[in-house]
């Protein structure tokens, strides 16, 4: 079975980075859900999802972002996505995610977009 892992890494300006690794499908979404839920519980709303090592995402995986984005934005935060491989970007792009989410090539850029007002 394919593995999936989320690593949470704090950054400057009260930003937290979720590093995704592996294959995100219906079986592994609970891992990502738990990570987002943990962030919400800790009232951390400035989130960057680094997809550098994400090899695949299914529709169920995409659903996780949709489940949490409203709560995050309601608290003046955001979920920004970065470092996607072209294949993974294509999946996000097909569904129109770039029209709803900030998807940027590099994590630094996403952090910059959050600005300094923590």
């Amino acid at each position, binding site marked *: 079975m394919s593995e999936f892992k989320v690593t949470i890494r704090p950054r400057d300006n009260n930003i937290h980075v979720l590093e995704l690794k592996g294959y995100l499908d219906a079986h592994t979404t609970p891992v990502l859900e738990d990570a987002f839920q943990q962030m919400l519980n800790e009232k951390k709303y400035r989130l960057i999802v680094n997809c550098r090592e994400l090899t695949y995402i*299914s529709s*169920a995986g995409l*659903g996780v972002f*949709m489940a949490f984005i409203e709560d995050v934005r309601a608290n003046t935060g955001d979920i920004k996505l970065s470092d996607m491989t072209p294949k993974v970007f294509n999946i996000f792009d097909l*569904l*129109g995610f770039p*029209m*709803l989410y900030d998807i940027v090539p590099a994590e630094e850029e996403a952090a910059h977009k959050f600005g300094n007002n923590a």
Partner: protein
Amino acid sequence: MRLKKVLLLSGALILSVAVFFLNAATKNIDLETSFLQHLRTLCTVLSFVALTAYLQIVKRERPRGIVQGIGSIAVVTGGFLAIYLIISLLPLKGFETRDLTLFPRDYQTIFFSSVFSIVAGLFAVTSLLFIKDLVLYKRKKTTFRNFVLLIIAILTAAASQLFSKPLQESVASGIFIGIAVLLIVMNSFRLAWIAYLPRKEKIYALLYSLLSFFGFLVILIIFSQEAGGAEKGIHYYSAALYTFVQLTTIFGAVYFGMSFISTLFHLPTAEAFDRKQTEISSLHNLSRLITQVFDLKDLAETATKMTTEVVQATSVWLEIIPTEGSFHKSGVMSRRNIGQEEIDAILTGDRLSVRSIVCESRKVLMIDDVGSDKRTRHLPRMKKAGSLLIVPLLSHQQVIGILYATKEIEYGFDQDDVDILSGFADQVAIAIENARLIERSFEKERLQRELMLAQEMQKRLLPQDLPVFATVDMKAVSSPALEVGGDYYDYVHINDRLVGVVVGDVSGKGVGAAFYMAEVKGIFQSLAKIFPSPKEFMINANEALVSSIDKRSFISLIYATIDTVSGELVVARAGHCPMLYVTETSTEYIRPQGLGLGMKTGGIFSGTIEEKKITMKSGDVCVFYTDGVTESRSTEGEEFGYERLLDVVVANRHRGAEEIKEAIIQTVWQYTDAQGYHDDLTIFVIKWR
């Protein structure tokens, strides 16, 4: 068998009568070693052989238990003594002794001597037969040998007197008698039957042994009295018989003396032995139940009933703790002689309760004195619970239930009870696990049937046949990954010229996706005719869906209207895979912008949606599909992708829609190495003729 019995009995009778007449005829003659004396001896021996054979048959026909057997011996000795008493009260003249030989004074003496001798013989043989059963109980190899040796010794001792005068004593017979007595003592240690008797039967055995012992003892005393009358009759009748009866009586006296003492010493442990017996039979019953009882409630009832029996508890109850995914409720499944309120009272105190101690330690908890033990002294005083024994039921290191037993008295349970109930609990745990597995497999079967039904229903939601046009050739296929899926394709006649075709994919798989798929079908069929523009259709479909769909689910859709006369195709895409468009000169994935359905409401969604327009010419092919096609994986984990899809369509462009569709499926199938599709998979091919 009946004939044999009659023959043996009548044979014995005739021989005895013959002996009587011989005796009568030679009343005053010393036969010495004449022919008549040998004839008399032969007749006597034969008559007893016949009698022994007869008694053996009769006894075998009516088998008795151990205690009954001892009882029978007591009755036989009693009967023999009674007959002895009667005969000795008769006014008989007795015998005259001359030259070690007895001469009866009258014919009555001869008659009653014969009768008494036969009765004595009967008594001896019957006693031996019954004692044989006792000695050979749970026999070992040596047991049987020793017993046979004893019988041989007794018979040899008797036989050595066959040819001597009634009162003559020989050294040889003295030696044989000595050997026989030695063997009697040896055989008298064979008392294996005592241990296996229940307590109540032991008491009877004790009583009967005592009676038999005294019976034999009295007979022995009578026999050894020189002055006695009746025993002289036996001497007169046959000196061998006298020795035989005497040795048998010694055997009886010694054996039952031993058995009386031994039984007496066994009595104190009889209760423990009984309990072991109950325990074994309870465990055995339970093992049997495991294969028979599938109902958890019945099982719990049996377990508490047996626990009560085995440890003689005042009250017992069994609590079942459901495992994850179980259909059972937690709680007391069965209780005996205790109310729910009393149980609740004993188990109060959340984290500190005896229940949680057992749950955490997963070990047996024994509380000797509920009133003073620090773990239970906070509990309200209860008459029923002086001491408490709590045993966890473990399955795969998980506590799946708890068995509780109480006794009124303090220190009511001992280590034996702990051992018994632990073994018992293991059995119950297995039984519960079994019952659960069976229930689960029933439930699984039921769900499987439901799913098959859902599959049938869903198949009917897809069009059975696509319409046939002179200009457009359309073919489609859909195959769910599981029993039901979220893929969808359909068509609608908008007007004479326009036909609408749609392919969609609900996020996720299985039953949840299938429900949304059914909803999409309803929306498509109603809205497509009202909104001929694909963009308008998408916006309205989104409005209809967004309110009813879960916020983490969405539906991707690609929808096109085709003018079957002009070849104009207008396509809109809502988050779905792009349309593959292959002409003679070009290949292209047409990808108008558009969010998936159900992700955003009104304004944002309609702002994202686009339409693209192409005009199909003869030989052009359009392919709609779901990501099950492009995301199919090879054994190496590589995706099928857009390039391979494009290649296979280009290669088969000149063929009909059906062949193109089959070619795509075959290629995907080969690519995945027939390990089955990972996702729902749908293909819709449109070919302009």
